[in-house]
């Protein structure tokens, strides 16, 4: 049976799926990236390998997405490397063909994707600042001495959410400390934080965009029921969180690899190969580009980061031989 592998590797977590021709998920996993995408992908591959019947399932397409898509793409010899906006939209559309709006809040990114008749018509992403993303929530949870996984449940118990200024993480933090010292209840502060994430998101990322339902909410923060509820209060309609919401990017890029013309033959053996990355400073000019070289078993397989052809190490090496 032919199958397709999709890997979505983000700043915080790494997601992978194996699907069949009908987009059914044969195997999936969700693990922490822990700042080491190479190791995370190896762990992911071992887990996926154990879940599928290797004699029967033959992986002929590989897609990668997420912020380390390029690195992982060369490691896996991917047939498709695609940005996460497109991947998320394709994945979500395969399960919810009539979706109009996707809210996505991840570890460092937040984005909104608008869809009309099954095609992406507009999107927006947070600009420089990571206020109101998962990283913000987990740092605040730590400050309050609450596990971030319990955040949502606690928020739901609040009767009167406190107002927290969330435009900037630094100010939110001092506002939060101040409110706590004033004697506001912990659950009210937590609910206030959830509300502020939502209003921050709608004002910054979603500003000026017309939001139509059905709305799907995904990304790590969608697991927080407090934020989901805050979204519903704010937009005045139901917000859907799929149990596989975290896999949408991986699913989307697996589907893209299914639709692509180039095919491969993948057997998970890369999990046993040795991969290494190395930063090299190019001294070709005063830009001093930092070039990333990826090697497999001590052989360079890819490089990037160069602004001009002087630093195009991989092609230089190829022409050398």
């Amino acid at each position, binding site marked *: 049976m032919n199958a397709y592998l999709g890997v979505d590797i983000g700043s915080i977590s790494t997601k992978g799926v194996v699907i069949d021709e009908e987009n059914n998920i044969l195997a999936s996993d969700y693990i922490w990236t822990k700042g080491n995408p190479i190791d995370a992908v190896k762990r992911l591959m071992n887990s996926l390998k154990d879940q599928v019947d290797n004699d029967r399932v033959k992986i002929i397409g590989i897609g990668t997405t997420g*912020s380390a898509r390029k690195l992982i793409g060369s490691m896996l010899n991917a047939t498709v490397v695609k*940005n996460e906006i497109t991947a998320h939209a394709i994945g979500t559309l395969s399960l919810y063909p009539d979706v109009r709006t996707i809210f996505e809040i991840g570890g460092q990114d937040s984005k909104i994707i608008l869809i009309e008749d099954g095609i*992406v018509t507009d999107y927006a992403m947070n*600009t420089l600042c990571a206020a109101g993303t998962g990283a913000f929530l987990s740092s605040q949870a730590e400050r309050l001495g609450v596990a971030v996984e319990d955040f949502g449940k606690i928020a739901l118990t609040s009767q009167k959410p406190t107002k927290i200024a969330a435009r900037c993480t630094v100010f939110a933090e001092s506002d939060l400390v101040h409110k706590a010292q004033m004697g506001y209840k912990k659950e009210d502060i937590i609910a206030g934080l959830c509300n502020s994430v939502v209003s921050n998101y709608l004002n910054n990322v979603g500003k000026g965009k017309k939001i139509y339902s059905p709305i799907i909410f995904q990304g790590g923060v969608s697991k927080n029921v407090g934020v989901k509820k805050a979204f519903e209060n704010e937009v005045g309609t139901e917000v859907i969180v799929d149990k596989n919401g975290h896999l949408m990017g991986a699913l989307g890029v697996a589907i893209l690899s299914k639709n692509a013309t180039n095919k491969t033959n993948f057997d998970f053996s890369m999990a046993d190969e040795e991969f290494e990355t190395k930063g090299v400073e190019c001294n070709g000019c*005063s830009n001093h580009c930092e070039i990333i070289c990826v090697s497999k078993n001590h052989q360079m397989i890819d490089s990037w980061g160069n602004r001009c052809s002087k630093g195009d190490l991989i092609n230089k090496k190829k022409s050398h031989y």
Partner: protein
Amino acid sequence: MNNIKIGIPKALLYYKYSILWTAFFEKLGCTVVLSPDTNKDILEMGIRKSLDESCLAMKIYMGHVEYLMDKCDYVLVPRLKCLKKKEQLCTNFQALYDLTQNVFDKQILTYNVDLEKGFTEEKGFIAMGKRLGFSKVQALNAYNLAKLSEEKQKKKKAKERSVILKTTKKLKILLAGHPYNLYDDFIGKQIEAVLKNSDIEVFYSDVYQALDIDKEIEPISKSNYWTFNKEMIASIAYHEPLVDGIILITSFPCGPDSLSNEMILRNVHIPIINLIIDESDSNTGLITRIESFIDIIEERKKHE
């Protein structure tokens, strides 16, 4: 008097006045020394010489001035406040001369334009010529000739682009922003490179034919008084029906843009994204945004 070397920093207003400046000094027989395209060394020198809160374009500018220090007799740093009645330029351009004079121990050559106070560009150039030891007539002549060649070259470029705008079969994206952001190697050029790699025809908001700025801006804003931002807003409105998408480029943190970007984003009804560029080195986030933007435009086109 012969062979005075005038250093021109390749940053900020250079991208608006390059022809005028170069032609003026060359007509007077001076040698023009240009700083190179922005590179990492220049950026780092600039950061060291700037206030933390300065915008990226200003930091880059200071690096270019520093580069020119030991390579010329004078560095040209104009002081521009008002080019059109009831309008203003960003305070950075008003303060540019004083700022550089205070930071660098160097002969700075300047000219002042403040129309509301009667200081025209022509007067400024004559005073500048005199300071270099030329007569009023020589300076005026050089200015007039430089003005002519500026106009001629701008018209030629605008015409070429407008023909391509009408005839190309490729996807068309307008890069909108201040020229010093659009054409800088560290800001707009890296965005242009990604677009050209994807076989997209790129247009710029400062290149246009017959644009009536006041007419275009009338329905959008009556109170905006930043000359460069008015031009940008009007050019975007003019290009909107002619291109497939718009990328709005801002250098962080820009005061006037923070106001006018809001106006633009709310008034444009074709795909548009705002990319804010700071001094950080990594362009991963940037490429993700541009790639998905191209995907969206291509998908839209396919379904039209």
